[in-house]
């Protein structure tokens, strides 16, 4: 319960208009982009929208004293229910903190507030000739704080890595209101435990991230796109493997299976050659045209060795855009194929990619459900999408079994439950299988020491 007295104190900290408490306003902060069903009990009692770390700190002091649950929130584009306030209390929305605090060109670093949208960080750096590579599919609307809290990945991860590869330091408000600073601009830094990496990917359960120091790299001068059609999924995967083994690293390598291709074809009124079983879209980048051509030639040679049916190297920006439009339209095209889509996110060692897809196909047959598989083949991150109608109880049961078995399949080949979307609520039941009891207990010990009252994002991860 948040009493009127506490509400008044919070309003005094953040300003009256930045603490919303009507049911209809608070309702908007009770869901995210996951398939967690809406529930009345998930509606927060108060939505607090601070503008600075000091305000966050003061709010946390109060919440900690009173034992009020606090769930941080960016843009609620998360796919695992991370920002849903399972125990009501405060939804702490960081979307008003959108400033660039410092741009340090000499050290190629930028310090930003957590509510800045990912694409704005990219654009800000790009305008100065620098590159912030992580590009989750949601980058036009997700916040950088949400990306750090989920350790988000993106299509460029093959070559450039994920969010954590760029986070150099953080300002974090702990559960009791203490403000700490981790990491810093020194590239080499082994002083103490690596708290920066601990908070990155902590899903809002260990502290509120209020400031982020990011490393930038020089912007590649040119990019080009290739699209390849293969008769077998294995051929596509082997092409990617052979390519990486010989040192050709594309910026992205996206794979789509037959079901995914059919979905896009239907959506965009295209025809897919019946001989095609998989498609790979790659982006290469570099500093000169020759650079790009060399990479494209080598990829083509490797693809031909692996029986590629068709290779298209974009000849213009427009052709490149057209190819990418297929990949970008994929998620919604698949979503449109069925009333419900359970879009999952598993990650496996790269060489286990074909095996995992085979296992998923078996699951699809076993449960008589269409499962589209696409993903970031370059880094072993797959998004199997189970197409079903959850309104039909019998089908819903089959779908849930299928999802269980997909996770089991990922673990059986040495993979993990999440490549980029985190655990949140939806994958909680599987975490012990993935980490073992002792592993989960270790996580809980860390949580216990940083948030002894358990007020930060309760009900998540385990």
């Amino acid at each position, binding site marked *: 319960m948040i009493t009127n007295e506490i509400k008044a104190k919070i309003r005094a900290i953040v300003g009256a208009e930045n603490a919303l408490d009507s049911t*209809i306003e608070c*309702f*908007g*902060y009770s869901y995210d*982009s996951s398939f967690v069903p*809406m529930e009345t009990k998930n509606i927060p009692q108060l939505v607090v929208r601070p503008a600075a770390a000091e305000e966050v700190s003061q709010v946390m002091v109060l919440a900690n004293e009173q034992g009020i649950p606090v769930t941080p929130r960016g843009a609620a584009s998360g796919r695992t229910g991370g920002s849903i306030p399972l125990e009501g209390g405060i939804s702490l929305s960081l979307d008003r903190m959108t400033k660039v605090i410092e741009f340090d060109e000499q050290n190629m670093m930028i310090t930003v507030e957590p509510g800045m949208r990912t694409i704005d960080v990219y654009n800000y750096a790009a305008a100065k000739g620098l590159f912030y590579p992580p590009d989750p599919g949601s980058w*036009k609307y997700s916040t950088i704080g949400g990306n750090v809290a989920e350790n988000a990945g993106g299509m460029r991860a093959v070559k450039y890595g994920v969010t954590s590869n760029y986070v150099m330091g953080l300002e974090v408000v702990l559960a009791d209101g203490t403000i700490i600073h981790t990491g810093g601009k020194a590239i080499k830094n082994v002083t103490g435990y690596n708290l920066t990496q601990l908070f990155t990917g902590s899903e809002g359960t260990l502290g509120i991230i209020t400031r982020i120091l990011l490393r930038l790299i020089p912007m590649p001068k040119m990019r080009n796109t290739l699209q390849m059609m293969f008769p077998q999924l294995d051929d596509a995967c082997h092409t990617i493997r052979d390519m990486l083994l010989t040192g050709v690293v594309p910026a992205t390598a996206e794979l789509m299976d037959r079901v995914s291709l059919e979905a896009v074809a239907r959506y965009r009124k295209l025809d897919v050659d019946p001989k095609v079983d998989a498609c790979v879209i790659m982006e290469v980048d570099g500093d000169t045209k020759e650079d790009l051509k060399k990479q494209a030639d080598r990829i083509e040679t490797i693809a031909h060795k692996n029986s590629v049916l068709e290779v298209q190297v974009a000849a213009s920006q427009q052709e490149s855009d057209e190819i990418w439009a297929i990949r970008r339209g994929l998620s919604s095209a698949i*979503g449109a194929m069925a009333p419900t889509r359970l879009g999952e996110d598993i990650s496996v060692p790269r060489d286990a990619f074909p095996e995992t897809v085979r296992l998923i196909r078996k699951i699809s047959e076993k449960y008589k459900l269409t499962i589209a598989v696409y993903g970031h083949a370059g880094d072993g991150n797959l998004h199997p999408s189970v197409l079903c109608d959850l309104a039909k109880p019998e089908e819903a049961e089959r779908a849930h079994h299928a999802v269980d078995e997909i996770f089991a399949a990922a673990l059986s080949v040495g993979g993990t439950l999440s490549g980029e979307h985190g655990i949140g609520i939806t994958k909680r039941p599987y975490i012990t299988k993935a980490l073992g009891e002792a592993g989960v207990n270790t996580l809980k010990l860390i949580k216990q020491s940083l948030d002894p009252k358990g007020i930060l994002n309760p009900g998540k991860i385990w």
Partner: protein
Amino acid sequence: MKNTDKQEQYLKKAGEIVSQCDRCGACLPVCPLFGAKDIEFSSARGKNNVARGILQGVIQPTPAAMAVLNFCLLCRTCVDNCPSKVQTDEAMIALRQYFAEKNGTPGAKYKALGNLMKNRTLVKFSAGALKVLRKTGLNSLVPHGMAPGEFTRKEYLASFAGPAALSGSVPSSPVQLAKKAKAAYFRGCGMHMMFPDAEKESIAILRSVTDLQLVDNVCCGLPHLAHGLRGDFLAMAKKNIALFEKADVIVSDCASCSGTLKHIGAYFADDPEWKDRAAAFSQKVMDFSEYLTHIGYTPRHRVAAKLTFHEPCHLGRGQGVKKQPRELLKAAGDYIEMKDANVCCGGAGSFHMDYPEVAAAILDKKRINIENSGAQIVVTECPTCLVQLNKAAANSGGKFKVMHISQVI
């Protein structure tokens, strides 16, 4: 049909639409309302999920929930940007109808507005209409008191016409097919009540290219449809269908009218009696600049004025008419494209009366974009936009003037 069945029907329709929402959030940064008031319920995601919450019993259909569903410009920017193409505007219209059925009325204000627009005698004599507006407290429809700040074509030519305007140097068009086709003018209530000079120019232009039919039509019904007076909308649609049966083309110089009329066919798709007539009617509707471009009209004059275009939501996103008005303006003056020309001005029917502060915040962004374009005249094709832009012009201290497209071409 029983009233409860009707309620069910509208809820169901909304449910089918909003269940497609993936809750991704792509609509947040693009929704003009979210840009002015950045809390979740302003956005399409917010509203679609309020609807979903009601359908699933997670929240109650309270007046507060209804207010959220009314808080939408119906501008379709979200639809354009949504990866799943969720038709948020249609869901909001269905839900407003649901609430109107549930409450037995759309609320006193919308009813008064609806009655006014239904009443031809009032609309016909704009002076009388303005009196009613004043009486019902709807006079904020009209900028700065009761007189719309209309900049007439005469004044325009007097201010900007150099020798070029007098010489009539624009080459005449080679296309001549429309003279035989019987075009009829659809008289929009907003244009007629508030911008009679512009209406006169539209008619003059149409007369110069076709043997124009003038029909005593009734309101297109959009205000009624948008606020839960669906019955009125359908009744007026039938009247209009019957009235225009002899025309080959129906031309409207109001983007909201032409947009609505083009959709009438869809509203009668399940009505065996009216289906074909309604479809035939809708197929004949053309927007003013769409029609003029189609028949190869060339502007009467070219003047040395810097013109920019504000694209009404119901014209660009609603009908895909984007190129045509710009082409006409390029031939009529020194055309400059402004930033975010297609972003809603905040007018949106009666939205600016219901939420004056939010509408003003949205409009202010528009004003800045117009000022930055350096244009002397901002041109548009919708009376609500004209009202809003007139307010912006006043706020800019007279940096630019506002005109309907028929007054400059």
